[in-house]
């Protein structure tokens, strides 16, 4: 009898887990503000006259150190541009000065570094930090100490959904991927692509889920059939079986996201092994944007569509040449997003006419950048809404065609026509 009870209990757990596992995790609650603490550590204005200190927190060492290496020259380049153009006019030509800090991909380090930047270095504003998880942690400290944090690259939806007042995100949020996907599918269907069903699958982690959930939701709103929606495990898993599951639903579109190049490569190979042949395969950037992925999958990448923020074929040639000369690095999307964050800060300082963090926060809330030298991303404007999300941010869709990555959507930036349906497994 006892054994039967145990078995029943175990089966109960199994059923519960099957029902609940795919529900979204609850949104993190805002950190409670501690007024006394905030008042005690009230930051002072920058000590040196004519200088505005910007704290920049990045992964300069540790497992993600190589992303920091790409970003450092971008910040320096943007600061040089602002300073060479006469600095901040409303502050009597004050120069920008970067104070670097390394979060080593650790949330604890990020929080203590933010505290150091604000309390010891007396920075007026902080920018960073390349990784969504780190930004989620670090912004709890800036919120408490009431210093604006301008987010450069991270796209996890939660960053701007916590009701924080001192967070400003320059890049797209996860929600934008749903819109991009729906608009792109509609655009293709207007040209007669006949896309009716979609399979959405991703690695079971924060970033992939936060970009693929909106894809599922927007697909349903647009009347597409969501034939499959599921995450593959974040641990060592056999992605062949997942590919078989996707194949079983016979979708017109496979939408996917991953943040590990190795898993993305295994999934790409799995789809190929099983000869899954949808009309198109579209992935959010993240792992699929990295050189390791497209080198690792070889010819299999042909026809893959990616949702990205920038592609080399839309670069402003003058900027690309100048940037490469100054930094000895080719221009890239992460660098441009970092430069964009610096320009947003510079424009806000211009408006604020003050180095007081609160004044800068109020200026960031109203600043708007129109196309021009200070809008380096291929967007029509930059404007932070009441949540701190830049509403002007936009995704593009690019496609691997004959071994080259070309922009295919939106039409005003496109350098080639999208090839959909693509015959994936006849290469």
């Amino acid at each position: 009898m006892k054994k039967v009870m145990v078995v029943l209990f175990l089966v109960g757990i199994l059923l519960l887990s099957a029902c609940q596992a795919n529900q979204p995790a609850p949104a993190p609650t805002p950190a409670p503000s501690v007024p006394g603490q905030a008042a005690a550590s009230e930051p002072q204005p920058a000590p040196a006259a004519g200088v505005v200190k910007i704290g920049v927190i990045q992964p300069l060492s540790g497992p993600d150190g190589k992303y920091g290496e790409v970003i450092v020259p971008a910040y320096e380049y943007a600061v040089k541009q602002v300073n060479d153009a006469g600095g901040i006019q409303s502050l009597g030509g004050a120069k920008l000065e970067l104070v670097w800090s390394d979060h080593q991909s650790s949330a604890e380090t990020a929080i203590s570094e933010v505290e150091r930047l604000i309390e010891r270095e007396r920075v007026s504003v902080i920018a960073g930090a390349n990784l969504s998880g780190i930004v989620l942690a670090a912004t709890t400290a800036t919120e408490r100490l009431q210093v604006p944090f301008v987010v450069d690259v991270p796209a996890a939806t939660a960053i701007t959904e916590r009701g924080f007042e001192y967070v400003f995100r320059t890049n797209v949020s996860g929600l934008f991927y749903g819109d991009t996907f729906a608009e792109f599918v509609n655009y293709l269907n207007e040209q007669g692509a006949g896309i009716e069903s979609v399979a959405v699958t991703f690695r079971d982690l924060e970033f992939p889920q936060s970009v693929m959930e909106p894809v599922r939701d927007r697909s349903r709103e647009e009347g597409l059939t969501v034939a499959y929606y599921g995450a593959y495990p974040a641990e060592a898993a056999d992605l062949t079986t997942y590919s078989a599951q996707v194949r079983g639903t016979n979708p017109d579109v496979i939408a996917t996201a991953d943040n590990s190049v190795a898993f993305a490569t295994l999934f790409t190979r799995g789809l190929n092994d099983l000869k899954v042949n949808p009309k198109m395969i579209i992935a959010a950037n993240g792992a699929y944007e990295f050189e390791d992925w497209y080198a690792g999958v070889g010819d299999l990448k042909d026809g893959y569509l990616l949702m990205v923020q920038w592609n080399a074929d839309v670069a402003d040639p003058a900027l690309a040449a100048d940037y490469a000369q100054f930094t000895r690095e080719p221009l890239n999307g992460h660098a441009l997003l970092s430069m964009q964050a610096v320009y947003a800060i510079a424009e806000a300082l211009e408006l604020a006419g003050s180095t007081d963090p609160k004044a800068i926060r109020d200026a960031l809330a109203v600043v708007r950048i129109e196309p021009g030298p200070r809008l380096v991303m291929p967007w029509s404007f930059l404007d932070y809404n009441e949540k701190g999300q830049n509403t002007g941010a936009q995704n593009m869709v690019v496609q691997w065609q004959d071994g080259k990555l070309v922009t295919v959507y939106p039409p005003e930036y496109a350098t080639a026509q999208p090839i959909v349906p693509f015959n994936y497994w006849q290469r």
Partner: protein
Amino acid sequence: MITEATITLLLQAIVVGLLTGGIYALFAVGLSLILGVADIMTFVHGDFLMIAMYLTLAAVVATGAEPYVGIILVVPGMAMLAYFSFKYLPAVTKITAFPHMRQMLYMLGFSYLLQNLILMFVGARHQIISTSLTKYNFFVGDVFVSMPRLLAGVVSVILTITLMWVIKYTDLGRIIRAASQDREAASLMGINVDKTYMLTWIIGIGSLGFAGPLLAPIFAFYPIVGNYYLMIGFMCVVMGGLGNIGGALIGGIIMGVALELGNVFLPGSSGPILPFLVFVGVLVFKPEGIFGKPIRSKR
């Protein structure tokens, strides 16, 4: 609703599970020898597998050959690593004389050391290895069979059965069994018990020299991947009965199939719930493991 697609998927999961189970079995047999026979509370078996995978990667990067050719280098490499770790690391040399709790702490420390050495010198990035064997992949009906996985599963099962035969029918095997059954009596019969334990340690870890190159082209690996395999390994070993090699083989195959079925029919990362349930179920009905002898007394 049971459709044709569901049945195909079920068959697919079983095929993949059987083949992966073969590799888990090879891993578990080595672990079972060390745990059950040499009586060393090892927590580094997974990390040695991780090292074997990184050695395979090194061999592939250095020579550009197929990962399977790496076996020639990785097996002696692992055996040497096992020998030196047993001989010269104080943690392992004297370990068989320590109480279990102290062994465990030593082994956990050793595990962190290995993980962080790889983290320091290679980095945290996920790695995979390509093989040209994938061009021999084939379909049986609608069920896909991947060549690297078939090779890994079959070779692992053959190796496991060979090991079983060695333990059961050779003098070496008899010595190992004698040393595990009664340490004092065996040494009175002229068996060098410490040397036997070392040999078991080397055989157990040396077998990872096969598992590493077989696994590396199938799964992604990274410095802490050993923890995942260790968990599976422990479950196979306990399920099959501690020290029982045939049991570890069956345990490995059951785990492989259960994990695969769990991954397919449970959402997201909740797949491992199914093998855990099977494991708990076995413990409830047969606490000594499927092939374990009823527990009589404590050592």
